[in-house]
């Protein structure tokens, strides 16, 4: 990739992706136009051959490119590309430090799949969010589990995806930009330390309020082979390829090419929209005169040509579809091509509208941002310039700043008005009518019964009491229940007998007992009734029953 450098400003390339911050303390001489590097390169290599142990700088290297150091601008570009991989390599390097059950996940492979998924979703109505990402990575994680002999575990997968996304978003540094420092050479050969701030992945808020992921231009170029490519050229090439493949009958390849063409159209749309977004944010972030105006002019011509080319492809595709047997695999492939190219065409039509309104965006923002005094000057550091100084102020003065904060951050609140007549009507409103067909639910009356036994029907109580009064000799409760069960007592009768016996405990002296009882240590279970067994005796055998007269008193 030693060809001539691109100078087309429309490219979202790694070279121009983010501004370089220079920390040099070099000579600061004016930069002269570069001479042809070819002749110097040849001389440089000759010297190298002649003096393999030590290379001396040429005596007069003022005119030599990069001071005769042999450096070239494309080397800087490649260096910058390589630096963008640092977060990915750091992520992979940390794989070995993970818990034993997580070491088998290849985080670099997962990160590339994340790039792939995010790229596929960019430009669509709805981007891919964390939850969707978790689901989409599930098969890959499961495959890694299978290879290492681990069971699939959702919580572990979630943690791994969080780690990968966190690394790509730079969560450790509170999502600040990654920063790489490298050595660059000025045209006069002065070496300088240069800082390169960049992002790979961003989380953004969609209009529906949800969050989604998107790749930065740098990440897109890195993922697509770290090539400094012209999106427009790629689109043209891809469309030509689709058309040729359709005409040659290579339908499967045409589907792939159409898919790539669609991706290129999304990428181009995204690029234009990003530029306009930056304009809305701050005019200073884009160079409208030198960059945006020619870009919009070129984009307008480009999009019109794309629409024409896509219509031509659709004509060829429709002709081919007519010649194919309906339902055949080839017909299905051509149908996919038609769908993808139709989507490209629709996207480009929408982009035409966006481009038409782009100049208005600039003029509007110029007026608005020029008016807003708030946009001028430096932005404060909240901690250093506001929070810390206000904390040092006496509270009587600090309140001026804190009041300003409360007022500025609070959203406008619609004052509510009291409608007195509505209030009175509401207070006097009759009880709501029951709509026809509604089922009335009667609240059960809660009644305190004097005895739990009364919950049984009277006939059940009679049978149970007769059974207990009929005891003439000592008998175990379990035996009584077993006999009753054998005689066909209903479960209600069994329950009632048990309850009556249990109520014989702790009664006051006025109670007329049905039976006397002695507790045993034996456990019993009969017909689902279980507990300590009781020895039942005829009433009065243990404790004399009070006379009827005493009871009445």
């Amino acid at each position, binding site marked *: 990739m030693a060809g001539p450098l691109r100078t087309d400003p429309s490219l979202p390339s790694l070279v121009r992706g983010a501004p370089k911050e220079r920390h040099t303390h070099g000579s600061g001489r004016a930069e002269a136009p570069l001479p042809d590097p070819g002749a110097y390169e040849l001389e440089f290599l000759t010297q190298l051959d002649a003096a393999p142990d030590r290379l001396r700088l040429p005596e007069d290297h003022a005119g030599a490119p990069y001071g005769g150091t042999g450096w070239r601008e494309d080397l800087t570009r490649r260096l910058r590309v390589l630096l963008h991989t640092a977060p990915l390599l750091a992520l992979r390097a940390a794989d070995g430090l993970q818990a034993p059950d997580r070491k088998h996940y290849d985080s670099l492979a997962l990160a590339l799949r994340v790039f792939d998924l995010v790229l596929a979703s960019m430009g669509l109505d709805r981007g891919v969010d964390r939850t969707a990402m978790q689901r989409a990575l599930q098969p890959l994680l499961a495959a890694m589990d299978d290879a290492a002999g681990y069971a699939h575990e959702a919580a572990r997968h979630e943690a791994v995806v969080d780690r990968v996304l966190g690394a790509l978003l730079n969560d450790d540094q509170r999502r600040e930009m990654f920063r790489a420092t490298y050595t660059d050479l000025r045209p006069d050969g002065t070496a300088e330390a240069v800082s390169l701030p960049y992002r790979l992945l961003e989380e953004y*808020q969609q209009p529906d*309020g949800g*969050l989604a992921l998107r790749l930065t231009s740098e990440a897109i170029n890195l993922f697509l082979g770290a090539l400094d490519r012209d999106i427009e050229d790629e689109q043209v090439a891809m469309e030509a390829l689709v058309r040729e493949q359709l005409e040659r009958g290579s339908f499967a390849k045409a589907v792939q090419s159409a898919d790539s063409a669609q991706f290129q159209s999304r990428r181009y749309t995204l690029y234009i929209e990003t530029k306009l977004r930056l304009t809305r944010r701050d005019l200073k972030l884009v160079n409208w005169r030198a960059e945006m105006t020619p870009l919009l002019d070129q984009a307008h011509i480009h999009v019109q040509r794309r629409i024409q080319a896509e219509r031509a492809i659709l004509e060829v595709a429709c002709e081919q579809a007519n010649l194919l047997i309906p339902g055949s695999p080839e017909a299905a492939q051509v149908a996919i091509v038609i769908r993808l190219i139709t989507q490209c065409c629709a996207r480009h039509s929408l982009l035409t509208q966006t481009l038409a309104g782009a100049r208005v965006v600039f003029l509007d923002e110029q007026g608005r941002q020029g008016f807003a005094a708030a946009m001028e000057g430096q932005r404060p550091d909240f901690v250093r310039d506001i929070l810390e*100084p206000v904390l040092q102020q006496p*509270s009587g003065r600090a309140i001026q700043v804190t009041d300003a904060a*409360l007022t500025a*951050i609070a959203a406008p609140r619609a004052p509510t008005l009291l409608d007195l007549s509505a209030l009175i009507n509401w207070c006097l409103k009759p009880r709501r009518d029951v709509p026809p067909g509604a089922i009335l639910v009667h609240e059960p009356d809660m009644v305190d019964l004097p005895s739990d036994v009364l919950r049984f029907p009277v006939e059940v109580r009679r049978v149970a009491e007769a059974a207990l009064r009929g005891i003439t000799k000592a008998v175990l409760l379990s035996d009584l229940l077993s006999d009753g069960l054998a005689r066909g007592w209903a479960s209600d009768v069994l329950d009632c007998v048990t309850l009556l016996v249990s109520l014989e405990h702790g009664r006051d002296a006025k109670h007329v007992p049905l039976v006397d009882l002695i507790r045993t240590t034996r456990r019993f279970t009969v017909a689902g009734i279980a507990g300590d067994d009781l020895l039942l005796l005829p009433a009065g055998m243990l404790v004399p029953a009070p006379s009827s007269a005493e009871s009445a008193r």
Partner: protein
Amino acid sequence: MTDFETATMGSTDRPDSAVTDGWNGGLSAGNGRVAIPQADVRRATRLVAWGLRPTARPQQHEEYRELVERYGQDDLFRQAVEAAAGGGDLRVLHCGPHGLILIAGETSPYLLKPADFRGNADVETRMLDGLIQIGIAATVYPRAADLFEAYDLARSPITAAQVQETIDLIVDRLRDAAKGDRDPGASAETQGLLEAWRVYDQKPRVRETRDGRAAHNTIRQQVTLHLQRLREQGCMIDTERAGTIQWQSTFRYHLLIQEYAYSPMFDAMQALRALPDSDPA
């Protein structure tokens, strides 16, 4: 009047042009005198009404979405909306897929005054409320450069503990620096002479009640209440991750802080710094 009858607004010879003063230059379409259908005036006011519901989203309400789209496409309608908002001393900060975002001027009946922020609050509590809001902004935007980021870029989620830590770090430093100084006079507190960090420092940081709930009067709980208040205003979304409540600032919050709110805070701070120390403000 029917919808077909028109209202004339923004003409150059109209004596009452105060409606649009300050925010924009009034309605214009080249000849200086523009007739707006009354139905459009009503729609413009409807859009302002939607803007006063900070949690409503155009994607969820068809009428809101249509009005926002019209705002973007029709210059005259946009001017009508801004005039309608300006009548209530409201300024349109943004109108797009995220909705209409308004800010209230000092004389606006829609302005939430600091005293209204919390019912029956004393001055000290009001100051703590403001400090916490600044603390939240400082936690979301730890560096000045962050204020230049895109509004829709999701910033790192924050927790109530992180906000508290942001303020605590400074207060701890100020407390250490004040060691050896004379204690403030007993009347300093009532006279508003006690430094703000001392007022903050007097409050308990985290405390639990006997039944395990967070105590209401702690700094941590107050931070949580403010984050909840921001959620009600469409500025925060709360999510639970790994058992911790995290707060994600929204497009609205970013726009509000980056485009507007930092400025009055910073200006007020600069004005305070310009005062001599003895001035009681």
